[in-house]
């Protein structure tokens, strides 16, 4: 019997982009639809990882260029999961699971990792940039929101790389555990533990700030 969470994760196994991918394969100019659909997600991922707008733009461009070039080689792999509905989520190898979005974010993960390796001199965090995300009209509310965002962002930026990446994929890109597992090359169980520990770390960090 599958749990509710596993049931919820299952529709994500179906590649909703299949028709767009097929169109883009037939006519590369149709890649624009995929680009528009995932631009903000890829850019957000790059921005939260690199913490610099220009670096995030460069990374985003590389991701989509590589995706366009590699699209003919992309293989959707969801059939094994659909054919065996009794298989518990996470029992199968996450590396065998690939939708377009997962494949795109695998490219993004590699591009971002290369970027981070190339430039280790980046500031640890740019809190002001992070706080720009939400700016309500009311000044007091804006200040409070800014402080909350800064605190949350600081807590996330102090996480180890794999936990931080899992948190960003979960909260910013709203991915399922199965998708995160496939992108990070981990099992779903490992990703659950990563997220749980990340939240505990963030909770301790926020509690420390409040006290």
């Amino acid at each position, binding site marked *: 019997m599958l*749990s*509710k*969470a596993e049931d*919820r994760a299952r529709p994500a196994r179906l590649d909703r982009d299949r028709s767009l991918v097929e169109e883009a394969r037939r*006519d*590369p*100019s149709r*890649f*624009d639809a995929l*680009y*528009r659909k995932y*631009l*903000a*997600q890829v*850019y*957000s991922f790059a*921005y*939260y990882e690199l913490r610099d*707008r220009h670096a*995030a*733009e460069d990374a*985003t*461009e590389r991701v*989509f*260029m590589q995706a*366009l*070039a590699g699209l003919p080689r992309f293989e959707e792999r969801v059939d094994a999961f659909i054919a065996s509905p009794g298989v518990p989520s996470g029992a199968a190898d996450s590396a065998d699971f690939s939708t377009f979005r997962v494949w795109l974010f695998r490219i993004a993960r590699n591009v971002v990792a290369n970027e981070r390796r190339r430039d280790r001199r980046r500031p640890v965090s740019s809190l002001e940039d992070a706080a720009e*995300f*939400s700016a309500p009209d009311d000044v007091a509310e804006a200040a409070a929101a800014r402080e*909350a*965002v800064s*605190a*949350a*962002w600081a*807590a*996330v930026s102090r996480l180890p790389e794999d936990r931080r990446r899992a*948190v*960003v994929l*979960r*909260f*910013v*890109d*709203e991915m399922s*555990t199965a998708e995160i597992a496939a992108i990070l090359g981990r099992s779903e*169980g490992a990703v*659950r*533990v990563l*997220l*749980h520990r990340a*939240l*505990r770390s*963030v*909770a*301790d960090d*926020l*509690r420390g700030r409040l006290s």
Partner: protein
Amino acid sequence: MLGSGTRDARRTERYLDGLTSADDRRASDVPVDVDVDPAVRLAARELRDSLTRVHPSFRFEEALAARLAAAAARQAAGLPVEEPAAAAAAGTVAQFRGRSIGGADAAVAGTVPVVLSAFAAAAAGDGATMPPGDPAGASAIQAPGGHLRGIWPTSPFRLPEVAIRQPRPLIVGGVGVGVASAAISLGAVYVAWRHSHPAVTPMGRAAREAHGRAAHFGRGRRQRVVDEILGVVS
């Protein structure tokens, strides 16, 4: 048998799924799972509110869309998706033409094609080829697919100086516009200086005076013709 850590992780995941589906439903709150650590719940809600998705600037979005469209066109034509390095630079690369030489200097000039070929290969970047049967390295450089990459001087190409130095390309369009602008500015400065300084030599003064009179005479004659046509009586 699940360990407590795994059980907690599963509970946390269920709570996160509840948060996500509450967002989808635009619900203000989510069912509280009493088994989940309250601190974890608080942290999850903080992160949900704080880690928002960011969108790049519209300008960047459209610029990248244009670059992707160009790359898609290249891909459809069977060319590499990535833009060649030489084509990425603004302007066109052209070679200065040298003066003709003969005799012994021709032997030195014989090394030019080698230098040019190396330079052309470096400029063309990815897989561009020199046309066959063109030993002097002259004529067009073509990219795979037959696209013209650049125009090069026709043979015989004689540049004894270039034979021992790297050929220096002229970038037209980028730097060229700057050079032209600077020349115009210098010309304007010179004319202003001429007007503000009297001629030093008698001949110079006489020439200026004659030029000024002719100019005034010309203008006066034109004005008289115009006045006659319009019937103006002075």
